[in-house]
């Protein structure tokens, strides 16, 4: 009888790589973070019978799209919402990265809208991230509202997320996803624009036929459904001596308020053809965006995901949990956009994936108040046996893309 290796996180037992990009079927899809518990069944990237993943299929579909008519749809939508009385007519969430820079700028300067940018800031801004944020506002030219959450709670939840889920980024994702709808309600701006569609990265293909962001990502019905850092809200309040108010920043909008306000959330990537590299160049030209001269740890790229010191750790943990590091994500995206051949993507992944995020590691563990050794223990515990094996005291992936 074959010895079946345990698959953590209820990931698919067999590891399959896409034939076109370098992603595998272990890649987690977007998931409502506030439902994230340790024992969840991770929704993962679907690879079809021909060995092609959903994201690649979507990229293929993208080639067939009539972008002119999509743009017309956009113009119609914008015409409906545009205000000339001096008030904001749309909301663009972001922290100054290339994608939000592109979205805000093009809506304002090409399509004549009046966006308010809203920012849920990175957990720990990098220097270049901070500079890019400032340039976005000061060079690009936008009003901005930044919501900075309670630092103590932020730190606690980040630590819990790492401790329970090995998910350093959860607090950021929670805040980022939830902020825009709440701001929209508060400021009375009924139209929100996010960047590219999530299907770009392999979230279920069914969604891309409309541009509205799936409401399940950001609404809640009642508190007992909510888990932050893998801990339920009632337990957080009781065990960590917090009040509900302390946690509000991480909670999604109340669905009733949302419905009453008639907020619409759209992906700009549905209307305008999205080439990440080109949004980089756009941001460079129009909003003073600067890439890093040195490559980011764990990948080859210099302009993706630059603004948070915890980014590197985040991607490192995805490497541990799913066998997919930052280079895998970057290369897959570039392959789908035809910037790279698969061969090069494979070489890049093998060279850079899983590189330890040395640069900010100490700072981050200091911030959350965790011993480095403990963090590394958590890392090792997170390696699913169906993905990892030990050889001569070193961890090796059982399956590498080729």
């Amino acid at each position, binding site marked *: 009888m074959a010895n079946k290796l345990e698959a953590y996180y209820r990931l698919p037992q067999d590891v399959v790589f896409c034939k076109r990009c370098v992603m595998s079927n272990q890649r987690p899809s977007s998931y409502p973070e506030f439902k994230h518990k340790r024992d969840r069944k991770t929704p993962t990237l679907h690879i079809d019978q021909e060995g092609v993943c959903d994201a690649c299929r979507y990229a293929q579909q993208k080639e067939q799209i009539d972008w002119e008519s999509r743009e017309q749809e956009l113009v119609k939508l914008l015409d409906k919402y545009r205000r000339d009385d001096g008030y904001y007519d749309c909301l663009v969430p972001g922290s100054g990265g290339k994608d939000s820079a592109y979205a805000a700028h093009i809506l304002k300067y090409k399509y004549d809208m009046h966006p308010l940018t809203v920012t849920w800031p990175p957990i720990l801004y990098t220097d270049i991230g901070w500079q890019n944020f400032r340039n976005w506002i000061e060079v690009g030219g936008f009003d901005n509202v930044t919501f900075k959450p309670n630092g103590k709670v932020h730190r606690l939840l980040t630590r819990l997320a790492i401790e329970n889920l090995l998910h350093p980024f959860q607090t950021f994702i929670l805040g980022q996803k939830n902020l825009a709808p709440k701001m929209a309600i508060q400021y009375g701006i009924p139209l929100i624009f996010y960047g590219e569609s999530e299907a770009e990265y392999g979230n279920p293909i069914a969604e891309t036929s409309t541009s509205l962001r799936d409401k399940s990502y950001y609404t809640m019905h009642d508190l007992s459904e909510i888990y932050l850092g893998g801990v339920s809200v009632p337990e957080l309040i009781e065990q960590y001596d917090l009040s509900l108010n302390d946690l509000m920043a991480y909670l999604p909008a109340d669905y009733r308020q949302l419905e009453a306000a008639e907020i619409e959330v759209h992906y700009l990537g549905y209307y305008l*053809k999205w*080439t990440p*590299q*080109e949004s*980089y*160049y756009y941001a*460079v*030209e129009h909003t003073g965006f600067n*890439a*890093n*001269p*040195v*490559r980011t740890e764990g990948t*080859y*790229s*210099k*302009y993706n995901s630059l603004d948070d010191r915890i980014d590197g750790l985040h991607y490192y943990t995805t490497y541990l949990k799913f066998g997919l590091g930052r280079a895998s994500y970057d290369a897959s995206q570039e392959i789908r*956009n*035809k*910037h*790279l*051949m698969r061969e*090069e993507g494979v*070489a*890049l992944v093998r*060279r850079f994936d899983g590189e330890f995020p040395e640069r900010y590691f100490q700072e981050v563990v200091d911030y959350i108040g965790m011993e480095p050794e403990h963090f590394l223990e958590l890392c090792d515990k997170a390696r699913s046996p169906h993905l990892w094996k030990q050889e001569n005291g070193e961890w090796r992936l059982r399956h590498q893309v080729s």
Partner: protein
Amino acid sequence: MNTRIIPRLDIKGPNLVKGIHLEGLRVLGKPEHFARYYYQQGADELIYMDVVASLYGRNSLLEIVERTSREIFIPLTVGGGLRTLDDIRNALRAGADKVSLNTAAIHNPNLIKAASQRFGSSTILVSIEAIKKPDGCYEAYTDNGRESTGVEVFEWAIKVAELGAGEIMVTSIDREGTGKGFDLKLTRRIAESVPIPVIACGGAGKISDVYDVISQGKADAVSIASILHYNFVKHHDTSDDFSGEGNIEYLRGRRGLSTIQDATLPEIKDYLTQHGVQCRHPITRAAHV
């Protein structure tokens, strides 16, 4: 002394590409078209860099080199992924006059010595890709600006010259592709500390930048990419068949890049000459004596 102006063509597979900080590579066209154009416009030399070579450990642009060297009669330098004497020999056989070494040279400095003895010093160019550290020091990088080495740039430059390299090409990765100008301090310090010619690379955003790196940076030659390539793209139709690979979104629009004030080679040389920099220029033919 006449300063050389050298277009640099970064090549990936069959395409000429251009990025920022050596990353985010956009396809701008077919290298042969650019090369031919620059030759006609008075380029003093050409540099071909295979930007994906060190990732694969091989240089794949020899075919392009062969074709180029049959119709272009100015010196051609080839670089990217050259690791052994055999690699160098193959590049020279394909028609290169000089080869550029970086990654292999830092990993094994003796290669410089062996290569310059075998092929002649003047054939061996060492490329130094520098990144400025927060403390103000410069560190040499390899693998097309991706891997740090811990090697301090100025010491390395001196060593490189001692080992027998014929020239040094200095690239500021911080400036490369940004159009913010060359790193004058970096260039000058290297130029003044080695007895061999130094080629400045990386950062030109307008014509006066080229002048500055010669007059203040003390460069003996200047390698330029963005200024020339974006100018070429703006004025020429480079719509070949690109369905193969690379980011070709940009080409469909055919604009320039607003952080770059593009220019032609004659415009650059005219400016230099007007400002007292000697460079090769066309001479009106004198009557037979």
